[in-house]
Structure formats: C-alpha cells, structure tokens
C-alpha cells in the first residue's frame, strides 16, 4: 500500500484544485459578506461564522481569474492554518479524494492562471489533474500585499 493524502477538491473555472483535508474546517454555502474597505482586492470581506469573524478570500481574484457571479454551487471553504482561519470562495466543491503521494508532482511551469508560488504540487488521479494549494502561502501573501497596499496607495479624500 502506498501512502495517500486526503484532499478536498473544488473547482475554479475548468480547473480542479485541492487542499489538505486536515486544513479544512468546514464548507459553507455562500452567505452575505461584509466588505472591508481599503483591504486588498482579493479580500472579499468578512463573514459571521457562529459569532466569529472570518476573513474571506476570493480565490478567483487571488489567482487573477475573471470574477463570476456567485451561483447556487458557490461555496466558502473555511480553512484553518495554524491559528488563522480563512474562508475561500470557490465555484463549487467536488469531493474528498485520496491521492497516492507518488502521484503528486512538483508544480509544472505550464499551469496557467495560478502563480506557481501558491502551488504545492499537482496530483494525478485517473485522467484528472488536481492542483494542490499551499494555503500558508496564500495567506501570508495576503498579509504582505495588504501592508503594501496600505503603505503605497495614497488615501483618496
């Protein structure tokens, strides 16, 4: 038996992504998101999850994909990285997969759309390609960019 990891897979456009199931706390339907002004563009806002404020990242914007209208399939994947909780808006959630570790390869250069910086690898299962995301990078990138945004952009008064 080869070693496997479990991932939650979801879709953005036609591409399929996955995150380690250990980092997924729950999956919710789309709810009202409160916009946070002057936050970076991909920061969709915050939601109230049972009394806790959870920041929401729009993954499409994060990966510089065109934004689309939310549908009934749109989901918020609430992830937990360390002590930080972040929700990610995705087009739809597919399933929980078992990926044999040997089927995971380093991110190839050719992947379009997503900056390879945020990719842990690509998993192959049958003829599907699952792009495995590095959540910590996505979040820390968020913090970095936020600071840049706050410092550089002049206040509009």
């Amino acid at each position, binding site marked *: 038996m080869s070693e496997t990891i479990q991932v939650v897979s979801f879709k953005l456009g036609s591409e399929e992504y996955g995150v380690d199931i250990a980092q997924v706390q729950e999956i919710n339907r789309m709810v009202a998101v409160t916009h946070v002004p002057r936050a970076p563009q991909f920061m969709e806002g915050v939601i109230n999850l049972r009394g806790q404020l959870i920041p929401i990242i729009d993954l499409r914007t994060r990966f510089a994909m065109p934004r689309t209208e939310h549908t009934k399939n749109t989901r918020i994947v609430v992830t937990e990285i360390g002590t930080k909780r972040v929700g990610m808006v995705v087009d739809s959630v597919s399933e929980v997969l078992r990926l044999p570790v040997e089927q995971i390869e380093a991110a190839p250069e050719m992947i379009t759309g997503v900056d390879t910086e945020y990719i842990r690898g690509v998993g192959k299962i049958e003829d599907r390609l699952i792009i495995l995301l590095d959540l910590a990078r996505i979040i820390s990138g968020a913090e970095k960019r936020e600071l840049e945004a*706050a410092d550089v952009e002049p206040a509009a008064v």
Partner: protein
Amino acid sequence: MPADDFFDRSEFVQYFRDETDELLQSIDADLLRLEQFVDTGSIDVEIVNSLFRALHTIKGSAGMLEFAGVQQVAHKLESVYDLLRKDRMPLTESGVNLLFEGRDVLTALVRAAVGEGEAPTGVDEYVGRLDDFAAVYDSTAQAIEGPRSEHDAEEDLTPLDEAQLAAFEADVARMLAEAQSRQSDAPEAAAEPTPEAGSGVDVDAAQAAVDALFSFGDDAAAPAPFAAAFQPAPAPTKPVKAAPTFGRAPGAAKPTKVSLTAQPASPPKAAAAKPAAAPAPAASPAAPAAEPKRAVTKNQTIRVDIERLDMLLNLVGELVINRTRISDIAATLGRELGTNGRAEGGLTTLAKDLSESSALLARTTNEIQESIMKVRMVPIGQVFDRFPRMVRDLAKARGKEIHLEIAGAETDLDKTIVDEVGEPLMHLVRNCVDHGIEPPEVREGRGKARHGTIKLNAYHEGNQVIIEISDDGGGIDLSRVREKAIRLGIIGEADRLNDREIIELIFTPGFSTADQVTDVSGRGVGMDVVKKNILRLKGVFDVDSVQGEGTKFTMKLPLTLAIIQALLVRVAQELYSIPLDAVIESQRIDAAEVRTVHGGEVITLRGQVVPLIRVGEFFRLDAPRDPDKVMIVIVGLQGRQVGLVVDSFQGEQEIVIKPLSDVIGRIAGISGATILGNGSISLIIDVHSLVASAYGGGKAARAEFSGV
C-alpha cells in the same frame, strides 16, 4: 475520555493557587477583624473558626499536591488558632503580629510552590518562633502535632438547625449520585488503578462515611476513625467549585478529592479511605454540624475561564441569527397563508403558533445574551479587599493612625477592568497614607482626630463606575507643588496659575512624588502614570484637594471595555459604528453650506471652521454625494473637531468589539467589527487613524488642516 487527561497536575496546581489566593485574602480580612479584640479579653469565635477553616483547607489541598512547606506552616498556624478558640491563649498584639506574619510566610510559600516566586527564606526561623510562642500556652504540645486538634475542633462548633441539615444532606446525596453516574459513564477511567484516580472504592468510602454521619447514635465520644468519616463532608462545596477546572475528568476529580482530604498527610491511596471510614460508628450530632455550616456560609461560586464565556457569547450570537431566520420564516408563512385566502384553519393556527414561539425565543435569546454579559462582571471588592491589610501595615510603618472605610465593594464591573484598576488604586491609596494623612501629633495640633480616615467608595452612575479615594489629611500643598514645578522647569517663575492648574501639575510626567513629602513613597510611579493607566481604560481621572482638609481622587470608568456605546451610520449601504466617546454631535446641514478651502471641504460650525472627511470616499466606496444635504458626525480629536460625512444616522447601540482577523491586517480607519443583533457585521470606525490617514495621505486635506 483519554486516559492521559485523567490527572492533569497543572490543573490541580492552578486550582490550588486560585483557591488559596482567595483563602489567603479571607485570612487577611479575618485577621484585621480579629485584631480589634486584642487585649479586650473577649474574642469572636466565629472569626477564629473562619481562620481555622481556611488554614485547614489550605493544609488539605497542599497535602494533596505534596507541598510540604505550605502544609507544615498551615498546620502550625492552625494549631495556634485552635488554642485561641479554645480560650487557652489570650489574644495579644504580638500574637496577632505573629499571625499576620504567618499569613505572609504562607503566601510566599504558596507562590513558590506554584512556581510563581522564589522559595522564601526564614521559614524555619518563623516556625521556630511560632512553636515557642504556642508552647507557652500549650504544655501538652500534643494539640500542635496530633490529629486530636482536628477532632476537637469540630466539637466547639454550634449545631445546625434542621433546614441547614436537610440542605446539606441533599447536597451530599446529589454529589454522590453525580460521582457514581460519572463513574459509570467512564468505565475506562474508573478502571485506572492509579492512586490519584478516583475509583469505586472512594465512592463507597464516601457513602459509608456519609451513612455514618447520618446514623446518629448515642456514642457521643467519636473515636479516632471519626475524623476520616467526617472528612468527606467538605465535598458539597468542593465539587461545585471544582467542576469547571476539572471539567475533563469530573468523575475522577470528585472522588479523588474525597479520598485525599481523608488522608491529607500521606500520599493518597484509594483503598486507604475504606478501612478508615467503614468501621466508623455512629457520629455525634455535632459532627455534621461542622461542615454544612461551611456550605451555608461560603459563597457558592465557580471559576470559569473568560474564554469559555466568550465562546458562549459567540454561540448565543449564532442563536440570535437563527432566531431572526425563524422569525422571518414565520412572517413569510403568515403572509403566504393570508394571500392564499383559503388556507386551511389548521395551517393558519400553526403559523400563528410559530410566530408566537419565535417571539418567545427572541426574548429568551436576548436574556441569555444579557446574562452572559453580566457574568463577565465582577465586584470591585476583589480589588478593595487587599487594601485594609496594606493600609494597616503602611500606617504602622509610618507611625500613623488610619482608619480605612470601604463602601460599594459590591459594585460590579468588567473583569478586565477590575484586573487593570488594581495598580492605579494601590498607588493612590499608598499616596493617601504617605502624603495625605498627617502624623497623629500634627493632626492633634491642627485640631483633628488623631486617626486619619481614608475612604474608598465605588458606585454606578449611568453606564459608568465611579471610584473615589479620599482622605481627610493635609491636602495638596499648592505652594510646594508650585515651587517644585518651577524648580523642574515645568512652569516659569512668573507664570500665574490658578489652584486647579497647580493641582494639574502633579500629572506632569517626571513630577515624581518622591520629593513631595516623605522619603518612603514615590517608588518611581508618578501620578502621570496613574492617570495614563486610567485613560487607557477609557476612564476619566480627576483630583480635588482642599488644603488642610484633604484630597479626593475620582476615577470614572466604563463598565466594560468589550462593550461600547456606538453611533451607527450608513455609508454606501454598509453599517459602520462610530464609538460614541469620540462623537461630539451629529448635524444635518445643507449641501450649500459646505465650502472648499484649498481643495478640502469645510463647514463653519458656531464660528469654528471644521474640516470634513467623506467617509465613503475615504473608504473608496461607491457613495454618490447627496446634492441637497450633508449628514455630518462631528468628532473630537485632541482638541480639534473634524466632521465625518456619512449617508445617514442609524441610532445608538451597545456593541461588542471584536478584532478583525490578522489575516486582513491593519486597515486605516477601522479598529474592528461587531456583530449586530440580526447577525450582520458592522465595522467599527477608528476615528483617530481615519483622520490621521486622511490628513497624511490627502494633500488637500493636509493643507486644509494646517491652514485652519
């Protein structure tokens, strides 16, 4: 229940520390009361009993955790109190001082035992002195060592009335039932044969002991095993207190307590309690009287981690959202049925029921929310309690006679504030003792009573708590303050200041109290620090002083820091909260009154030019300007006024502040968020950073601001 969670020593140590802290505090209070009986020849036995019980509990808990030093000193002190209450020893001043000292030695030992301080020195020397002292009155010396003291101790207590006894009986029964059911819930745990863990034997032992307690026989002279039989009795108070701390292994904790207290001096063995308790013959009626008495007089409190309360609050928030949803559904259903016209009667009734019960749910949810808020409140007495002793010691050291009067100790305020306010209060009280109250001779010379009075008073006023510290001492010596200020270069020789302004000088940083009157105070904490601490708590600090008559410090504090009063405003469809303490007024003015100076907008308000910041535009929201009117919230900022332009005012509300996730980072103009009653989120405007950022980034506004 994982087996390794079974006995978490650190939890017990934590519990021990908290419990002992409380007991040491009560010992202090009792000693102060006891001190009044010095050399009167009489004594209030209740006080001594209370002291005895506190030490007994400390001794027991320390024994359980094998803190030998604490246990030993507690035991010795207990013996001395035993002599006192049996009237074998007169109450003298040197005796009381020795007991005060013992309390301090014990405190130091406890601190060291729980790893919060260095092991104190001179303990042996103190124990030696205590022994010598006691030996004079206790020739048999047995009372200090043997278990007899424990036994004798109970005989002196007054019997209970029947109601108290019944209450006690019920408590014990409940406790046993709980212990037993927990145990059957956790067979894995119960099977664990560790000496610390509770097992069936403990419950049996406790049961046997309790049985023995309630089968009153004629055998009035309780033999030795009685002590063991009696020991399980503290349980009615203990499990209640222990529950939150031992939450993970409740079944284990309770029986453990029972067996451990039964054998305080030796490492606990579950089986040890059984032979001791089982043959226990009928106990005398006096026996049950001892412990239930404690159950009745002691406060029924539990200790809860504040985080758990916050969690509870969050969950209630969720409940509120669902409640709102249910109300919506009920309303929609009612409408649908109404428009349908020919809805069946049954359905209509159901819809009505639904809307009624959702209204009920709404009310209950609100009450739960309010109750949890109240649970976060604790009485200020927790802080006040430490002052009687402090004032006594300080006054003695300074050769002053001081009465401390405390009022309003029951006044509630938020736990976080109570924790923070101790330090400034302590400094102020110390200040009163050192600088306020004059020495007795001076006071007599001035025609005042020999003893000075310091008053501590707390009370609610609106949604604020007022704390006053006043003394009838000499007041602030204005000419000396003035001299000092001139010497320090704070004011010039020629400056003319009124009394008020001179008093204000003591809040200048660097204006240390060290040189003010005595040599002893002024440990580097100036009045400026006190004032800063109070401002940090969003409080107001004030001082009044009349030379020759006294000084009064007043602090006004918000009831809580987590909840603030806010003005809700709408900007581009979103609701924002502006903390009310920054708001001066709100104005609705004609758009024509807004003028432009250097590209920045201003209005003139009562002759003053007030620059405007359009919040919607600052936040880069899609907020079209209203061509007719402008809604402005005037905020105050370091003496300046700034107008924040919003779309509409939505009234005032109490809000609970929650920080924004650090994933989002710091955002200029936003200090956090709050969740409103309907579950939606409102961002809280940080007036300070909004204005600073607007002026820092916007050239026009900056020019405007400096131009005004």
